[in-house]
């Protein structure tokens, strides 16, 4: 208990200590002169530009930016789809896996990885060749994160530039972030992970004779190089089926700690970067403060629910912790609970314990965090532009209350922007609720359930929430590799990704065209404690209004039934 509290505090301190300088560095990468670092990286980046035919002098308006982004992602998906279907003819396939079994599974995985979701309807070690893992999945782990970051950077340009329709060059943002941020940190993480025991080889699976004389075949592969970007890019798709619970992905409590840091450092650094770019660091601190506030509330609920455990099991003379199904001994309660809260606060979706076996209220936390849109630090880029939706709504509501035209950073927020913001808020919410409703009344939807009673509804709700929010964690008991789930989740993932990105790029374009008015006496301050509380409050109110009925039928009623000792 005491060591768990130490863990939570130390984590927060180390996180801030890394994110502050990283935020400064990233400010330099995207908005700075880049004299020193640029000298080293620019020649490398120019090779990319030349080979791809990019003119680094030109910038794009929001439509061009969105077009480039979508085209790039479409081809990424097509490429990944084709690799999976032809892996039997490609190299680095020591287990001789055939092409990925069904076209709809391959499609689901392709869309899942370009949208930064990394939903796993497949089991990595039993389905995918090393070639597919490397050239398909690892690559999209980088590129989907870089896509998200590009949108965040373009959005910041929209907010801080004036009287222009240009919001940057997608190709430059993509390449810069990959070359200057993702790749160097991934290299360091990879080597650290290997030192701790994560495997990195191209061997065939090893068959050993166990002490009791049985045979055990152990899956191998180039895991560490994928593991690092899986966490850093808030992707979360494991090399193995069991993801970060697998000892070859996450062998020690220390790798677990570093993996959790890797999820959060870039999202938090982006918030600090925002403060730097607006020339008012407090703008960033206020948002970061609201995020920390929401984070610790969520962590508190999850941790206390897990520690309280399961009263049904209490009666069987099993010693505490009674909520230990699906958890690993090396992590224990604290590191499991912290990981669960982090991976769903961000859009990572890696798991080091099985969320399906969490206590009902413990499982409500990841579910709710994803429903809110993963804006508590959130995914790389996605967390930042996600919280901006709520920031603009907060500013708008406050503006209405005092009867002034709402403005943010000196820019008037008008009907046009609010329409797009509402689209970015409504598209994911509607997607989650409609698909879940459809699945829970159809035979195809119910066929996949692993648990009965309200927990079954939670499994369905979790799947569509995770897909739409581009998280990728699961109540994994649900058999998701069916035509129905593969296809419906593919649509949900696309809507949840591009149904937010495109409206927000439109907002960025529209904001860039506006003038910046100097702040006056009547200007609502978007820094400081009041704004922080307002922002967190708005997030929770909108989330509760939208999702409380669904949550009441799933985890909340299950918690009540569990206390009464009812099983299904």
């Amino acid at each position, binding site marked *: 208990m005491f060591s768990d509290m130490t863990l939570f505090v130390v984590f927060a301190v180390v996180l801030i200590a890394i994110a502050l300088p990283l935020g400064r560095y990233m400010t330099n990468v995207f908005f700075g002169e880049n004299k020193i670092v640029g000298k080293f990286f620019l020649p490398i980046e120019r090779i990319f530009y030349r080979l791809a035919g990019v003119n680094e002098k030109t910038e794009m308006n929001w439509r061009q930016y969105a077009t480039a982004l979508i085209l790039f992602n479409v081809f990424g998906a097509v490429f990944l789809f084709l690799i999976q279907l032809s892996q039997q003819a490609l190299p680095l396939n020591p287990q001789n896996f055939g092409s990925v079994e069904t076209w709809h599974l391959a499609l689901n995985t392709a869309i899942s990885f370009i949208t930064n979701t990394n939903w796993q309807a497949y089991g990595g070690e039993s389905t995918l060749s090393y070639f597919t893992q490397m050239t398909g999945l690892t690559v999209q782990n980088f590129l989907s994160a870089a896509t998200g970051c590009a949108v965040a950077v373009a959005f910041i340009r929209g907010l801080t530039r004036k009287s222009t329709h240009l919001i940057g060059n997608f190709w430059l943002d993509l390449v810069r972030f990959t070359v200057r941020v993702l790749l160097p940190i991934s290299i360091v993480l990879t080597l650290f992970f290997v030192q*701790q025991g994560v495997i990195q080889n191209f061997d065939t699976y090893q068959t050993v004779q166990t002490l009791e004389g049985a045979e055990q075949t*152990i899956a191998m592969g180039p895991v560490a190089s994928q593991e690092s970007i899986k966490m850093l890019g808030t992707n979360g798709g494991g090399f193995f089926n069991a993801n970060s619970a697998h000892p070859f992905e996450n062998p020690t409590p220390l790798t677990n700690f570093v993996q959790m840091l890797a999820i959060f450092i870039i999202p938090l650094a982006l918030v600090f970067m925002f403060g730097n770019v607006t020339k008012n660091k407090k703008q960033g601190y206020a948002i970061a403060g609201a995020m920390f506030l929401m984070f610790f509330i969520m962590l508190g609920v999850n941790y206390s629910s897990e520690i309280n455990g399961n009263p049904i099991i209490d009666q069987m003379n099993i010693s505490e912790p009674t909520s230990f199904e699906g958890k690993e001994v090396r992590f224990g309660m604290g590191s499991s609970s912290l990981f669960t809260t982090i991976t769903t606060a961000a859009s990572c979706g890696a798991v080091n314990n099985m969320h399906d076996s969490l206590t009902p209220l413990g499982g409500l936390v990841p579910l709710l965090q994803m429903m809110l849109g993963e804006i508590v630090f959130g995914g790389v880029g996605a967390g930042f532009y996600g919280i901006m939706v709520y920031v603009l709504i907060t500013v708008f509501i406050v503006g209405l209350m005092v009867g002034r035209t709402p403005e943010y950073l000196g820019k008037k927020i008008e009907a046009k922007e609010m329409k797009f913001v509402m689209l970015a808020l409504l598209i994911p919410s509607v997607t989650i609720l409609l698909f879940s409703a459809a699945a829970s009344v159809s035979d195809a939807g119910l066929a996949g359930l692993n648990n009965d009673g309200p927990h079954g509804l939670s499994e369905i709700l979790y799947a569509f929430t995770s897909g739409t929010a581009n998280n990728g964690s699961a109540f994994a008991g649900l058999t998701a590799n069916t035509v129905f789930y593969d296809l419906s989740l593919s649509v949900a993932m696309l809507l949840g990704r591009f149904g937010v990105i495109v409206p927000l790029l439109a907002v960025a374009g529209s904001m860039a065209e506006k003038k910046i008015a100097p702040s006056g006496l009547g200007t609502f301050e978007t820094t400081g404690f009041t704004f922080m509380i307002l922002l967190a409050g708005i997030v929770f109110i909108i989330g509760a209004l939208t999702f409380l009925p669904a949550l009441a039928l799933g985890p909340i009623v299950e918690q009540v039934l569990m206390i009464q000792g009812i099983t299904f």
Partner: protein
Amino acid sequence: MLKEISTSIRMLLVLTLVLGVFYPLSMTGFAQLFFSSQANGSLITKDGQVVGSELIGQTFASDAYFNGRPSAAGDDGYDATSSAGSNLGPTSEKLMKNITERADQVRQDNDLSQTAMVPSDLVMASGSGLDPHISPAAAKLQITRIAKARGLAENQVDALVEKNIENPQLGFLGDKRVNVLRLNLALDAMAL
């Protein structure tokens, strides 16, 4: 538009070459050079034979070995090509039945009373199905049985368990734990 399409495809191919080929290959090179044991799975050999990985749990069912946790990986458990948890929820009747049966089995194997407390990790499956560890309490519960099966003194076995307890990293990361394969190897070494 044609230009954008061409740029997209070319950019994707160049990035795939760097991130999907060059990066993992060079990382493998470094990993094999500097940390070859870990990079290849932390395999443990006994008498020149590979008997498993330090990080991957394996099935121990006999009375003479410390037993690990229940496993949902593969059909028979501890299938290291098919990692998985049970994914049974907190109000699952099946989970409750599994736990009751396992607890009864543990009590029976170790000559405990019908109402004796059993550590939860010993009756609940791990997330990966490959958890190499058990809690110190789960190891200590098995000492009497193992001493009897091997004809050793209980305090000898107890000392061995104590010696094999791994502490939290840096004092606060993770829980105290015992690596089952390591402990059983030490047990075999002691008998010789």
